[in-house]
C-alpha cells in the first residue's frame, strides 16, 4: 500500500466567537468541520468553494499556523501532533505556504535576497555552497534575474513578487506547497506565467500541491484532483476531469455553471440567458449561511436548487432537511440513498468510506440525491 505524502483525517478547526468586555464565548465558527483527503507525491489537489467556506483555514492548519481543534494531519503516515520537537521542525520545513497577495506577503523593508534567504536563518540551515549561492539558484529556478538580489519588493511587478514568494517557499526544499490563491491577485496575462512555473517545478522537484483558488479554470488546469468545500466541509471530491465534466453535487453544478466562460453565445444574464445552451447559469439565491450556525440536515439545503425540484416544487425532500449526507460514491440509479442520522459524529464514517475505494481516487459527493446534472429544462425557471 502506498502512503500519502500528506493525509488529513476528519480535520476540524473551530474558532470561538467572543463578545463583550469579558470576552465571553458566545458561539463557535465552524471554519473547517470534518475534512479528509490524501495527497500523493507529485500531485495537485485543487480546493475550491465560496468565500468563507474554510479553504484558507484548512491551508493554515496544514502549514502549522493554526492548530486543529480535532482530527489528524499525517505526513508520510505519521501523525503530526505526535511528532517530537525535531519532527515538528522538519514538518515546518517540509510543508511551505505561498500566499495570495504578492503585495502584502513580502516585507517591504527587506531586499529580495534577504526575503528568499530568510528561511535559512530561521531554521539555522547552512545550504551547501553557502546562502548567497543558494538564493541565486532559487531566483534562477523561479525565472528571476539573480542579479536583482539587492532590489526591494516594490521594484517588482505582481507576477514577479509572486515568484519571489515561491522562491522563498522553496528555500528549504519542501515536499509540499500549500498555495492559497497564488494567482488571484494577478492579471490574466501574468497568471499563466506563474501557473506554468508551478507546473514546471512540480515536474522537476516532484512537489505536491494543495492549490486553493476561486478561479475554476485555473484549478482545472493545474489540479489532478479537486475538492469542493461548502461551509467547512468537502461536498464533492474526485479526479478533475470527472468533477468538471460530470459534477454530482448540486453546489458544484451551480459553481461551474456560474463561472463566466469566454463564449458570447453563453449569456450570463438577461432575456437570452434562458435560451442559451446549457439553459443559462444556475444562479443560487442568497449568501452562504453563517458557519457559526450551519443549517441542520444537508448544510446546502437552504440554497439548493435541486431539492425543491425533487420535492415537487414546494417542499424539499425530508432527508435534505433532516440528515446530513455523507461524502460517498453516488448510487448508480441516482436515487435517494440511505444515510446515517445527523448526530454530529459521522466524520469517521466519511473517512472509512474513502479507504474502501482502492485503485484511483474515487468520485464522491455529499448529497442524498447525487447524480449528474439533469436535463436543462428542469434547471432554473
Amino acid at each position, binding site marked *: 500500500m502506498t502512503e500519502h505524502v500528506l493525509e488529513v483525517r476528519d480535520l476540524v478547526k473551530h474558532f470561538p466567537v467572543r463578545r463583550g468586555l469579558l470576552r465571553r464565548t458566545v458561539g463557535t465558527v465552524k471554519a473547517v468541520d470534518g475534512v479528509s483527503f490524501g495527497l500523493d507525491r507529485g500531485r495537485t489537489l485543487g480546493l475550491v468553494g*465560496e*468565500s468563507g467556506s474554510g479553504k484558507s483555514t484548512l491551508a493554515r492548519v496544514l502549514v502549522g499556523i493554526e492548530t486543529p481543534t480535532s482530527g489528524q494531519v499525517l505526513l508520510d503516515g505519521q501523525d503530526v501532533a505526535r511528532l517530537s520537537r525535531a519532527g515538528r521542525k522538519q514538518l515546518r520545513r517540509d510543508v511551505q505556504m505561498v500566499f495570495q497577495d504578492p503585495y502584502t506577503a513580502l516585507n517591504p523593508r527587506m531586499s529580495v535576497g534577504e526575503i528568499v534567504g530568510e528561511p535559512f536563518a530561521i531554521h539555522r540551515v547552512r545550504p551547501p555552497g553557502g546562502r548567497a549561492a543558494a538564493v541565486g539558484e532559487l531566483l534562477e529556478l523561479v525565472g528571476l534575474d539573480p542579479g536583482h538580489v539587492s532590489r526591494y519588493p516594490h521594484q517588482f511587478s*505582481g*507576477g514577479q513578487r509572486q515568484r519571489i514568494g515561491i522562491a522563498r517557499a522553496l528555500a528549504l526544499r519542501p515536499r509540499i506547497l500549500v498555495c492559497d490563491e497564488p494567482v488571484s491577485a494577478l*492579471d*490574466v*496575462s*501574468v*497568471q*499563466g506565467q506563474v*501557473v*506554468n512555473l508551478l*507546473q514546471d517545478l512540480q515536474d522537476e522537484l516532484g512537489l505536491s500541491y494543495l492549490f486553493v483558488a*476561486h478561479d475554476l479554470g*485555473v*484549478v*482545472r*488546469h493545474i*489540479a*489532478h*484532483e479537486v475538492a469542493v468545500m461548502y461551509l467547512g466541509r468537502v461536498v464533492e471530491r474526485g*479526479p*478533475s*476531469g470527472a468533477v*468538471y*465534466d*460530470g*459534477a454530482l453535487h448540486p453546489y458544484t*453544478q*451551480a*459553481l*461551474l*455553471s*456560474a*463561472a*463566466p*466562460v*469566454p*463564449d*458570447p*453565445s*453563453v*449569456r*450570463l*444574464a*438577461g*432575456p437570452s*440567458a434562458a435560451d442559451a*445552451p*446549457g*439553459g443559462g*447559469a444556475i*444562479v*443560487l439565491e442568497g*449568501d452562504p449561511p453563517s458557519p457559526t450556525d450551519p443549517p441542520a440536515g444537508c448544510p446546502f439545503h437552504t440554497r439548493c436548487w435541486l431539492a425543491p425540484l425533487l420535492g415537487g416544487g414546494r417542499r424539499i425532500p425530508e432527508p435534505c432537511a433532516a440528515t446530513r449526507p455523507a461524502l460517498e460514491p453516488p448510487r448508480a440509479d441516482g436515487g435517494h440513498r440511505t444515510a446515517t442520522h445527523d448526530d454530529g459524529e459521522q466524520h469517521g464514517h466519511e473517512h472509512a468510506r474513502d479507504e474502501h475505494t482502492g485503485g484511483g481516487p474515487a468520485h464522491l459527493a455529499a448529497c442524498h440525491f447525487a447524480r*449528474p*446534472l*439533469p*436535463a*436543462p429544462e428542469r434547471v432554473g425557471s
Partner: protein
Amino acid sequence: MSGDTSAAAASSAADHDGVVGPGTPLLEVRDLAVEFRTPEGNVRAVDGLSYRVAAGRTLAVVGESGSGKSVSSLAVMGLLPDTARVTHGEVLLAGEDLLSLSRREHRRRCGERIAMVFQDALAALNPVHTVGYQLTEALRRRRGMSRRDAGRRAVELLDLVGVPNARGRVKDYPHQFSGGMRQRVMIATALALDPDVLIADEPTTALDVTVQAQVLRLLAEIQAERRMGLVLITHDLGVVAGMADDVTVMYAGRVVERAPVRDTFGAPAHPYTRALLHSIPSSGAGGDGEGRRLPVIPGRPPSPAALPTGCAFHPRCDTARDVCRTDPPPLEAVAVDRASACHFAAEVLASHDVPPPVEHEEAAHD
C-alpha cells in the same frame, strides 16, 4: 433595436474612426487624454480613448490593471484627483460636453444622469451612515422628496436589488452587509436617481462566482428594464462574453480594439486581444493537471511612465515586425463596426486565430 434613431445618431457622429454602434448614443467619449503629475514628470494614463454607449446597450471596457480603465471613468464623472488633468477630449452627455462645464456643474449633471458603481463597495459607501440614509440623502437633496417618501423609495430600491428584508435592513450600516449584499446596496444607490447611464467599474471582481452571477444578472435585468446604457469595466473576458454587446479593449492607456463582442471573440483583430483570449484557463475545456501549459503573454504591461516606442505592445507581441518598434499604429476601421490599432490588423483578422471552442454545460447533461 431602436432602428430609426440610430441612423441619425450614427451620421452625426460617424466622423470618428468610422465605427458606429446601433442605438442613440447617450454618452460619448471622444479622444480623451488624462495626465497625472508625478515626481517623475507628467504621465499619460489615458491617451485617445473614444467610446459611445446607447440606450439598452452594454459596452465592456477591458484591459489589465493599470491600462487606464478606472482613470477614464473618473474623468467622465468629474471625479479625478487633483494631481490629474484632462489634457484632451470631450465627454458628451446627450450632446453636451461635460468637460466644458465647471467641475461643480459637471458633477451635478452626472449626478442626475450618470451613476457609477465601484469595485470596492465598502470603500465607496460611507461607513458612518446607515444604508437607508445614503439612499435617501440624494433623493431628498436632488429630488426634493419628503423624508417619508424618500424612506419608502429606499426600501423599494433595496427590494429591487434583491436585499432580503429590505424594510429592516435600511437601518443597518454598510459593514453589516456581506460583500455581495453591499454591492447590491451600491447598485441601489446608483439607481436612486434613475440614471440614463450606469458605469460599473469591476462591479464583481471582489465577489465569488455564485454571488457574481447574482449581481450580473441583476445588472442585466435592471438595464434591460430601464433601457439604461451600461459601461461595464472589467478584466474578465468571461464576464464580457456573457454580458456585453460591444467591447473596447485597452492597453497602456489606449484603445487597441473595438468591436461587437461576438465578432471579437470569433476573430480578434488585434494580437493583444487574441493573446488575452488564448490565455484564459477554461473550466470547460479538457485538462487534468497533466502537462498542458497555459499559453501566456510574455513580459508584463508597461508602466505609463516608460512606454515602449512605436506600438506599446510590441515587446510582448508575437506578430511584431520592425515597423512596430518605430511607428505607433493608429486605430482604424478593419471591418463593419470594427476598429483595431495594429499595423497588421487585416492579417490578424483574416487568420481567424481563436482559442478552441469552449465546451459548455451540455457535457454535464448526458
